[in-house]
Structure formats: structure tokens, C-alpha cells
């Protein structure tokens, strides 16, 4: 069973602004799926249509086989949404926000209260549960929206840039929580600007650009398309002669740092053999950029220098 099926989905806003040009997309049940794309590519419109906040111009969206357009109520019962912008009543307490959301999905009040306590505790918000929600920090507000989306225990959890502007410690705790939710059987769709996040968490990915899906595959397969990887080599001693290795482009960034761009067809051993012959000692090595980031920039045609 597919958790999400999108067929020929089009959205045209007023003044003929085309947000989606006929998107086709499938997300399998249990998947951890990344939806990537630059700003204005159509990610939020697509999520808006799936969650019924945006009316599609044409096409069909099914959640676990239930049409969003024809059986909205049943389809919505399967989904939990964490939107990009804060959209809870900031005059209410976190506990009330989560419990009330449970009620809108038919969760009896006592059960909603138990679940609210469980999720707020898991997300480190229990000590703030009875204070005014407007006093929460940005990261706490995002975690509150995750707890709110989980209170009816949806089969499909959609997170629209949940970690934007969140510090690394909180981000990692959110990753852990979402991974646990996915491991327990909830299908997760994630949009993010942190490509490291998608690479670390997700199994499959779709890249959307100018209202079209330009890539829809597994992360592994996508990374396999990366033809050249650039590594940064830190040297023990400053080096004055630039080493030459056939088929590998080497650039000296500063006397103690080299950058080597290596095609997939070439072996790293060859590079190290030449460096050793020339008496250059490498003390550490890392990828210049996140691998998915490199691919993403190529696919959506962003010039690295310009970016």
C-alpha cells in the first residue's frame, strides 16, 4: 500500500502563477521520504494540497488509497502535519493545544491528555506544558507542533522544514524522535533545507523544481550519480610543490590545505601513493561539501560560485 499517491497534480494560483505543473509522486508505506527543492519550487503547495489547506486545480491525491479530494475527512484522519510556520494559538497553554488537537481527530479527552503528556515529555517540553505558549523559544514551538501532530497517532507524518533555525543539539534530538516514530511504523515525509538531514535520515527522495519533480529515487541511487567528489586534505607540514596525479584535479587552498576532485572511476589509493612519494603527509581528510548538496545544486542548476 502506498502512503501517498499524487497523480498529475496541478495548481495555478491567481494571476496565472503556476505552482505545480502536473506532479506525479509515490511514497511507500513506512518510508522516510525527503522532499527537496529550492524556495518557491512548489514543496509547500504540494504539502498544502495533501493536507487539504490548498485546493488543487486538477489531479488527484490519495493517502493510503483514500482520495483527499473525494473523501477529505477519511484522508485527513491518516495525516499529521507539522507546518513551516507557527500556527497555534499563542495565548493557549501547550497542554491545551495538544489535547484540543486530539479532540479534533476524535481522540477522547482523557486519552488525548495521556498522549499529550507522553509526547511533550519525549520532546522535552513537559516542564513548559502549563505556561503560556507564546513564551516558548523557536525550537520549542517547533517541537510543540510535532507533539500536536502526533497526538492522534497518524499513519503519515508530514514535516515541512521542522528544524529550520533550530540549534544543532535540539535538531539532533528531533531527528532521534522522528526516526523512532518512523521505526515504529509511521511513514514520514520531510522537507528540509539541510541536505545532511535528508542524507542521514531518509531512504527515498524527490527533488521538485519550478513545479516539476525532476528526480524521484532512493538516496543511495541518487548519491550513486555523483561522478566527482571533492575532498579537503589537511597536511602536517606546509607544502610548496603542487602534486600532480593523472586524472585528479588538485588545487592548493593554502600552504597546509589541498583540495582534490576525484572522479568515481579513479582510486583514492593512487592519490595517496603519489602524495607519499612526494613526502606530503596527510593528517585528516573530509568531503568539501555534503554529497547530496553537491548533487542538489547540480540538479536544480544552482551555480556554486553564485550560491
Amino acid at each position: 500500500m502506498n502512503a501517498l499517491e499524487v497523480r498529475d497534480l496541478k495548481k495555478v494560483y491567481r494571476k496565472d502563477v503556476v505552482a505545480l505543473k502536473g506532479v506525479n509522486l509515490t511514497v511507500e508505506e513506512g518510508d522516510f521520504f525527503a522532499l527537496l527543492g529550492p524556495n518557491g519550487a512548489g514543496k509547500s503547495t504540494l504539502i498544502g494540497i495533501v493536507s487539504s489547506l490548498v485546493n488543487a486545480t486538477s489531479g488527484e491525491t490519495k493517502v493510503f488509497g483514500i482520495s483527499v479530494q473525494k473523501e477529505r475527512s477519511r484522508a485527513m484522519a491518516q495525516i499529521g502535519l507539522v507546518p513551516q510556520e507557527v500556527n497555534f494559538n499563542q495565548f493557549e497553554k501547550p497542554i491545551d493545544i495538544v489535547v484540543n488537537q486530539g479532540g479534533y481527530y476524535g481522540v477522547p479527552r482523557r486519552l488525548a491528555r495521556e498522549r499529550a503528556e507522553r509526547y511533550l515529555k519525549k520532546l522535552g517540553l513537559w516542564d513548559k506544558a502549563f505556561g503560556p505558549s507564546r513564551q516558548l523559544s523557536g525550537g520549542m514551538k517547533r517541537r510543540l507542533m510535532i507533539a500536536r501532530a502526533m497526538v492522534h497517532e497518524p499513519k503519515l507524518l508530514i514535516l515541512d522544514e521542522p528544524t529550520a533555525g533550530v540549534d544543532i543539539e535540539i535538531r539532533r534530538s528531533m531527528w532521534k524522535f522522528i526516526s523512532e516514530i518512523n521505526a515504529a511504523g509511521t511513514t514520514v515525509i520531510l522537507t528540509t533545507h539541510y541536505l545532511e538531514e535528508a542524507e542521514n535520515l531518509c531512504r527515498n527522495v524527490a527533488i521538485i523544481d519550478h513545479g516539476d519533480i525532476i528526480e524521484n529515487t532512493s538516496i543511495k541511487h541518487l548519491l550513486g550519480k555523483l561522478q566527482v567528489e571533492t575532498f579537503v586534505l589537511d597536511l602536517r607540514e606546509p607544502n610548496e610543490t603542487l602534486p600532480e596525479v593523472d586524472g585528479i584535479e588538485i588545487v592548493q587552498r593554502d600552504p597546509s590545505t589541498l583540495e582534490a576532485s576525484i572522479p568515481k572511476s579513479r582510486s583514492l589509493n593512487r592519490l595517496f601513493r603519489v602524495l607519499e612519494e612526494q613526502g606530503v603527509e596527510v593528517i585528516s581528510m573530509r568531503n568539501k561539501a555534503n554529497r547530496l548538496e553537491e548533487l542538489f545544486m547540480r540538479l536544480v542548476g544552482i551555480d556554486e560560485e553564485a550560491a
Partner: protein
Amino acid sequence: MSVEVSASTYWTGFKTILIKEVTRIVRIWPQTLIPPVITMTLYFVIFGSIIGRRVGEMGGIDYMEFIVPGLIMLSVITNSYGNITSSFFGAKFGKHIEELLISPLPPWIILAGYVSGAIFRALVVGFLVWLVAGFFSGFHMHNVAVTLSILLLTAIVFALGGFINAIYAQKFDDIAIIPTFVLQPMTYLGGVFFSVGLLPGVWEQLALANPILYMVNALRYGMLGITDVSLGLAYFMILLFGAALGWISLMLLKRGTGLRT
């Protein structure tokens, strides 16, 4: 297995919206419950006690008693309308209406929840004004069933009107225009302070086109046993407006006007 939606989902959803609305009304009671009571007390003191003594009788009864149903109706109308406009537009403005829009609840449950919240506030304020009125002119009740049904139906009609206003409103000014420029004049000209029979010829005919006149007179019948219009016609007018506004509200909500893009 997909998560299923049943009648109990809807019932729990309705109760949740109502609990949320009642909690809001009670939490901000100095804004929601007290001001109308103070305003109405001033009306009773100035129009009833001071000016009313010079007026004497209206429609065969003491002027102070005569204005009580109209002032209760004025409170019910403004509070029912005002509650739903501020609450629903506030939710729309703060974007937390999305909590409901993405839920499985159908439009009629969302509407019923908000309308019930407005009825709660309107009837609580109406009851408080009735208590104040009792202090000035004693408690009068001619027909409890007519009194309660007219108050309930009127609260529903104006809650639905307020809901439509909130759907179309894009800024806070938009929810103040109709109460100020339409509702208040219609209420004051709807026979709150006078019997419609006192109006000269054409003005009396014009006044009969005002639906609030029927509501005020039907309540006056329920409380005092006197009315300028037929009770049957009053019920017919109220039910007609209620059905029309209810249908429009549901259509707007279903289409997502002002809510979904």
C-alpha cells in the same frame, strides 16, 4: 488499516471546539461578560429610571418594563455576533484555524462548534442583563418557552451572520464595520425603546422590513405578553434568516472561501 472516522469522531470534535470556545470566553471574562452588563445597567439607569419616569407608559405598561426585552435582545445580538467574529477571525488571522482545516471534521461540525460557543456567551450575557433588569423593574415572564426559544434562535441567526462576516474579513476593521454601521442602527430602530405603532405611516412600514423588530417583539411577548407583530410571523422570519445564513455559511466553509487557497 486506515484510521476510521465515525460519528464519535464528530461528537468529540464538536465538544472540543465548544470547550475551547467556552474556556476562551471565561478566560477573558472582563472583555466578554462584564462590559455588556455595565452598558445595560447604564441604559436602565438613564433611559429606564431617569427618562422613563417622564415617559410613563408604552404599549400599556411601565416604560422601564417595556425596554427590558429589547435591551436583553440587544445584548444577545451583539454578543452572539461579536463572539464569533472575534474568535473565528482571530483564529484565521493567527492561522490556528488550520488546526481545524486539516482535521477530519466536516464543515457543519466546525460551524456548529463556533455557533454553540456564540450561543453560550449570548445566553450568559442575556441572563446577566435579565438579573440587572430584575433589580430595576422586577422579574417578569409571560411565556418561558417563547422567551427561551426566541433568545436561542436569535443567537443562532446572529452567530451565523457573524461567521459569514469573519469568513470574508481580511483585517480587524472588517469585523467592526457591520456591527457599527448595520447591526446597531437596525437594533435601535427595531423597537427596543419604542412601540412601532408610534411611527408615522411610511416609517412604520419601513420598520416592518427590519428583522430585528420581529425578534424584539417576540421576546417582548414572551416576557411581558405584548407584541406589535404576529408571533407566527416572527418565528417564520427568524427561521427563514437562520436557514439562509446557515446554508451560506456551510457553502463558504465547504468551498474554503477566505480559508483555503
